[in-house]
């Protein structure tokens, strides 16, 4: 049989990609963390103006924040359900991959939100909103737990993810992400540093650089894997 005469079945083109659902889960998780940061910033500003009970404007603002968190939580919940209900057959490798990503996303969201809320509760009256979100102090026990998770548990999860959960196409996408993120760091961080020394921009912020590095890496990985 001539290969070019073979019948075509394109049921895959109809099936919705899980990639879009995973993207919404990741974006919504980041959104919740950012709303947490906005709450911290709002409270810092509130304290800077003397603190005390929130007025009507404050209650309305917090209602909007709460609605945003609830909405983003709903997006995560519905997409997680659809992801689980998807009848697309998955290999053991893919199931492990999905579970690790979901676990890291949910765990990261909870940790980020907790840190944001802690920053809110401990905000001093002269705190800068961005600085508060990125650099405010946290309890020593929380710091130890987070450092243990990031420095000991995450390498184990990463090892399992690379060895057991991803296939070669995703590994390639991940390497591409590292390539772009690495160059963005090598060129972006010194540029920021030079501009700061010239008195043109605020001092380079290590946490902000780390977050941008991670976002570029993840964005390229996502694009290469799902497009």
């Amino acid at each position, binding site marked *: *049989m001539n*290969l*070019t005469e*073979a*019948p*075509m*079945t394109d*049921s*895959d083109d109809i*099936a919705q*990609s899980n*990639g879009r659902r995973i993207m919404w889960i990741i974006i919504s998780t980041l959104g919740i963390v950012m709303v947490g940061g906005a709450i911290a910033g709002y409270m810092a500003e509130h304290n800077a103006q003397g603190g005390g009970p929130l007025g009507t404007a404050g209650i309305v603002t917090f209602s909007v924040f709460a609605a945003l968190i609830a909405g983003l939580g709903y997006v995560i919940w519905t997409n997680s359900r659809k992801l689980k209900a998807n009848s*697309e*057959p*998955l*290999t053991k*490798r*893919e199931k492990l*991959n999905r579970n690790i990503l979901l676990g890291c996303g949910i765990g990261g969201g909870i940790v980020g939100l907790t840190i944001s809320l802690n920053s809110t509760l401990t905000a001093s009256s002269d705190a800068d909103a961005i600085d508060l979100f990125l650099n405010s102090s946290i309890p020593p026990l929380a710091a130890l737990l987070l450092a243990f998770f990031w420095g000991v548990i995450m390498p184990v999860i990463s090892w399992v993810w690379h060895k057991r959960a991803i*296939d*070669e*196409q*995703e590994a*390639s996408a991940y390497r591409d992400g590292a390539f772009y993120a690495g160059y963005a760091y090598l060129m972006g961080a010194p540029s920021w540093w030079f501009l700061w020394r010239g008195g043109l921009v605020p001092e380079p912020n290590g946490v902000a650089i780390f977050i941008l590095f991670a976002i570029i890496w993840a964005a390229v990985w996502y694009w290469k*894997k*799902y*497009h």
Partner: protein
Amino acid sequence: MKNQLKILRAMRDWSQAELGQHLDVSRQAVNAIETGKYDPSLPLAFKIARLFGRPIEEIFDDEFDGGTDDGQ
């Protein structure tokens, strides 16, 4: 790299996900190979060839123009 994977898959009436299960790769990986966005490693190319019982060069076309190895 152009290839015949989509046609071979259709001949067996498999979805991308089903082919992925046979190859132990994701549906996205099958899609990326079929659309030429990702070239499989040599071990995966051999696995595909064995699965469909065809030589690699019948499945994958490197668009070699037929010239000699020294480029002439």
